[in-house]
């Protein structure tokens, strides 16, 4: 029973990591950059949703929608202002710019919402919890796991079936060739950022529904963990991000529950290292082909 309890907690935590990791992996796959500010977009999304629920009295669905719109606008703006001028630059230069953006978002949030933590209103989402014997499953957990599956499936369908999705895969495969084929690379990348940021808003709401403290630094650690998860699953791969995220969450909970809470994070990272040594491109990553 305790095992099942831990498993469900792990799946719930892992599902949140997975949704965040999807944002990392999509942007990486298409724009070939690590968007370090992604964790902070999540934080902004959660704050906007918080304002919607707490100050403007919006119904939950509407608050989430507003938050998604805000994040989409934010994501596309960041991409256009800070990342697009560096499209031809070395990838490390873009990485540093993303780090600068992460600082900027955190400090802006500090200016707007102050340093005091806010407690995310959760009454709408877990007024009920399902009891199975001694097992308690909160509605937030179920919604998180369900949302994760829905998002994964629709993203896979989107990239496989739609015209835009095909353009994305094309840009991800070979940007130069895509451009020659008449694909608008800048627009494709903007759309990718828009989707990734909208996902960030959902991730922010889900994160704060399960773990309801909201601070300017709320996004950074989950961001790093999710980034780890994306690499774990094979960065650039959508099912990989999902698998990596869920596994990372489960390992984290099990490591803490059965080995030691003191060394919880060390265990997660140790497992990651072992996996990468056995499979150097992550669980579902494509092997690197080398051309001579």
């Amino acid at each position, binding site marked *: 029973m305790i095992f099942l309890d831990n498993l469900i907690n792990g799946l719930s935590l892992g599902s949140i990591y997975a949704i965040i990791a999807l944002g990392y992996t999509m942007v*990486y796959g298409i724009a*070939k*950059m*690590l968007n370090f500010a992604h964790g902070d977009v999540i934080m902004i999304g959660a704050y906007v949703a918080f304002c919607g629920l707490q100050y403007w009295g919006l119904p939950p669905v509407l608050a989430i929608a507003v938050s998604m719109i805000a994040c989409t606008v934010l994501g596309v703006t960041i991409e256009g202002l*800070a990342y697009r*001028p*560096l499209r*031809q*630059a*070395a*990838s*490390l*230069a873009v*990485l*540093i*710019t993303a*780090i*600068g*953006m992460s*600082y*900027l978002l955190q*400090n*802006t949030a*500090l*200016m707007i919402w102050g340093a005091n933590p806010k407690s995310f209103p959760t009454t709408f989402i877990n007024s009920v919890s399902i009891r199975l014997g001694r097992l308690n499953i909160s509605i937030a957990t179920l919604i998180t796991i369900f949302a994760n599956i829905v998002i994964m499936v629709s993203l896979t369908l989107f990239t496989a079936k739609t015209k835009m999705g095909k353009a994305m895969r094309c840009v991800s495969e070979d940007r130069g060739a895509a451009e020659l084929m008449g694909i608008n690379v800048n627009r494709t990348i903007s759309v990718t950022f828009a989707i990734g940021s909208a996902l960030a808003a959902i991730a922010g709401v889900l994160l704060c529904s399960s773990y309801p403290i909201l601070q300017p630094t709320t996004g950074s650690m989950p961001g*790093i963990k999710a*980034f*780890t998860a994306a*690499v774990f699953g094979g*960065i650039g791969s959508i099912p990989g991000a999902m698998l990596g995220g869920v596994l990372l969450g489960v390992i984290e909970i099990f490591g803490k529950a059965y080995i*030691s809470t*003191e*060394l919880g*994070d*060390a265990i997660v*990272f*140790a497992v*990651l*290292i072992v996996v*990468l*040594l056995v499979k*150097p*491109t*992550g669980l579902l990553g494509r092997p*690197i*082909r*080398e*051309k*001579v």
Partner: protein
Amino acid sequence: MTKTKRKRLIYNLITFSVVIAAYLILQHMIDAKTITRSLKGQLVPICAWIVMAVSLNLVIGFSGELSLGHAGFMSVGAYTGAVVSGWLLNAFQMENTVLRLVLAIVAGGILAGIAGVVIGIPVLRLRGDYLAIVTLAFGEIIRNLVNVLYIGTSEGHLNFSFLHKNLPESAVILVDGAKGAVKIKPISTFTVGFVLILITLIIVLNLVNSRAGRAIQATRDNRIAAESMGVSVTKYKMMAFVTAAVLAGMAGALYGLNSSTVVPTQFTFNQSINVLVFVVLGGLGNVLGSVISAAFLTVLPEVLREFADYRMLVYAIVLILVMIFTNNPAIRSLVNRLISPVKALLRGRQPSALQGGDKA
């Protein structure tokens, strides 16, 4: 060939003279008491960060591997330095601070080097972002382990315990788990920091310009070509990685012994990122650039104190703008055209841009 050699010599000369001139000016200001307290207090940390930046540049700029765990080696050095210094003082009553500092720095370098070997063996089998994430993971693991480490000294011995504090009653506590290394007697001096920078520059510039250094750069520019020419990629990458770890450990010891306490939270992933920012801003493979940008970016937040609470906001904006202005091709070519004669002289070697992921 001779032309490149001469260029390189000029570049090295400029690098050394900038550092030495800066030292002489600052030392003069200290003697004349015209230096502000604030700047004086930052001198040792600046030295430590310069060494960190130059050593990380060896890994990223010359060896071409993105390492995100450099602060981990620094923490190994800082802790080792604090323990060695405390042990020498308590067990052997060694009062000579300079000798103690030098021994502590050497010990910090050795232990960080060992950590570098242990971590390097698995890590260097990986490439690109996967390597980056594993170095990040190691950095976090080191921090996690140090957090539950207890070290004391009694009767001339060192006592260790892990996870739970279990030291003899009589022991003088040197490392106290989450409370970090405690009751350090600050003994770092600006002059020793300066000497450490010189040593670092000598090691790095010599390594880079040696046969091994050319091999290291060859593995960066084209691994397969280098391999087929008979260069042992792993060996040379390892050489760069471990050298950088040793230097980071030494910087750590200097840094740790500058303050009365050291905590694990000082060496997080964010700190590694900070050093990375120094390196990228200074230019990959550009040693003098690392020196200048490390010093500049360490002082910048202090200069921005006037902005009070907006300071970190301003810092972030400055960082983004600098990156865009120095890396946008359009702006860059304009600047290049304007200052190309000067630049050609300054730059010993054109640092080639590093690609984050391997090209498929």
